[in-house]
């Protein structure tokens, strides 16, 4: 009887096996202790993982003298002025604006063109579809960096070096996104799209009025992942832009860091600048966590 009960508990919990061999009462006690030990262990790991973020904020609130003094852990008085200075007297906001603008444009391009490609690969019949799909698969795991030297030359020939437009159009392709959408499209009942076609609906209409509403969660995931990747990107933007005015946040932050931190003692301001950039992303993540996890689950299906 007891065995049966233990087996009926939801999802294979390690602790429930203990219930099998002990009486109900000590079993419960052992289960609670087990749970507590796990929580203590995970809380410890979480503290270590979150520590760089905490230390960033603590350091940002110190004075220059406090930050260099190894005896001081907490600032005596929180220096909110460091944040004010970074926000109002440094180009950080401008870099954020650039990043937001470029990321929004890139997301729009990637999602619209990616959805069209995924639709063509999933529902259209045309010559060369197989070849096209092989090309897309073949590009999937290539290191983008291998394209950077010719990419640089192409942008300079198009006269688009050192411009946000050049940056945006050179990031139009998101192979991962095409896979993600295609995977979602393939799970729709095939008859659905066929029926719409028979009714005379055009592909553009089917994609945005029938397929899109049914696969909206995948679109949300794609948008968020694409946004974060563009917003955080560093190598390619830093190679093709020179003018500080056109820097994205990562590049801008690094310039700020070289001026103030790496070779100076302006660590509180460098940490404040990092915090200004990192905290909004953490907040965004707090509210969108499940979509990122969905993206990973969908990717994992392939593996």
């Amino acid at each position, binding site marked *: 009887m007891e065995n049966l009960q233990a087996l009926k508990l939801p999802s294979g919990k390690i602790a429930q096996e203990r219930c099998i061999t002990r009486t109900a009462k000590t079993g419960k006690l052992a289960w609670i202790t087990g749970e507590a030990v796990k929580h203590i262990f995970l809380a410890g790991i979480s503290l270590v993982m979150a520590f760089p973020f905490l230390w960033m904020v603590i350091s940002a609130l110190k004075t220059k003298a406090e930050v260099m003094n190894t005896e001081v852990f907490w600032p005596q008085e929180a220096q909110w002025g460091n944040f004010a200075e970074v926000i109002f007297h440094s180009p950080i906001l401008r870099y954020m604006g650039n990043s937001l603008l470029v990321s929004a444009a890139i997301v729009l391009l990637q999602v619209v063109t990616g959805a069209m490609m995924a639709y063509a690969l999933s529902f259209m019949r045309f010559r060369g579809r197989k070849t096209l799909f092989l090309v897309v698969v073949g590009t999937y795991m290539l290191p983008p960096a291998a394209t950077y030297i*010719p990419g640089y030359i192409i942008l300079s020939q198009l006269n688009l070096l050192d411009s946000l437009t050049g940056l945006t159009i050179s990031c139009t392709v998101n192979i991962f996104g095409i896979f993600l959408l295609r995977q979602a499209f393939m799970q729709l009942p095939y008859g659905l799209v066929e029926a719409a076609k028979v009714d005379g609906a055009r592909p553009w209409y089917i994609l945005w009025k029938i397929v899109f509403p049914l696969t909206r969660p995948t679109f949300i995931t794609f948008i968020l992942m694409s946004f974060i990747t563009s917003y955080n990107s560093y190598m390619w933007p830093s190679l093709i832009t020179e003018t500080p005015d056109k820097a994205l946040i990562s590049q801008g932050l690094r310039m700020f860091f070289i001026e103030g931190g790496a070779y100076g003692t302006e660590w509180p301001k460098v940490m404040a600048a990092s915090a200004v950039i990192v905290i909004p992303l953490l907040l965004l993540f707090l509210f969108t966590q499940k979509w990122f996890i969905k993206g990973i689950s969908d990717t994992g299906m392939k593996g």
Partner: protein
Amino acid sequence: MYRWRRRGEALFFVLPILIPLIVFWIYPIIRSGWISFTNWDYMTPEYDFVGLKNYKDLLSTGGFFPALKNTLVFGLGTAIPVITGGFLLAVLVRSLKKGSKFYQFILFSPWITPTVAISIVWTWIFEPDTGIANIVLRFLHMPALQWLHSSQTAMLSVILVTLWKTLGYAMIFYLTALAKVPEELYDAGKVDGASKLALMRHITIPMVSPTTLFLVVLNTVNALQAYDQIQVLTQGGPSGSTRTLLYLYYQLGFEQFHMGQAAASGVLLVIIASVLAGIQFAVSKKSVHY
């Protein structure tokens, strides 16, 4: 008539992405191959065809093998702890009755923050005199380290930062995989009197092995592409101890303007990545419908 319309529609759907795909992916890869056989230096418009010289130089004196070794150390040094740690954390978090969402949030959050910003924070943590890493070591009565400033420990530091950033990511992959293991398998195992360890060894680990393979490939490809943290933390130094293949490519191309050699190293990168992707594709094909 209908056929032409259908072709036109297909073209309309494919071209908006096919053009940038050709201009910024396919053509550049081919062009890289061509440049790798020349002695182009970016400044002068003329260049000569030099055959395999760039590859020979790269493999003999050009630093390919030290960089390959660093890439391997970096790749294995991150992949092994990320994969085992991610798996164990996933098992632990999944077994919780409450609070698993909270831990997922904390452990996964480093992954979504910009590598440059957090690498700057880590530079500050690693500062030999005033950084908290050495304060902690001294507090534990352990010898302080030079971290990023010594060729002995620089790679370790870069690995630590990368590990910190990707651990939660691997955990989420495993959480998904664990959720898909059929419960009946465990029930059957328990009825047979299998111990917890036996269940783990004979059910859990084999059932999540596709995810493990996927993470091995993903981590290796990521190791091949790591740039942001290296650029901020060490710039490939001290004395080349953190110069990975991609960083070598960057230095040859965008610091020294040896475009031919840089392109050659890029081609080698592509070859290595293709082999890895091929392995992944071949193995996963069985369980996947593309």
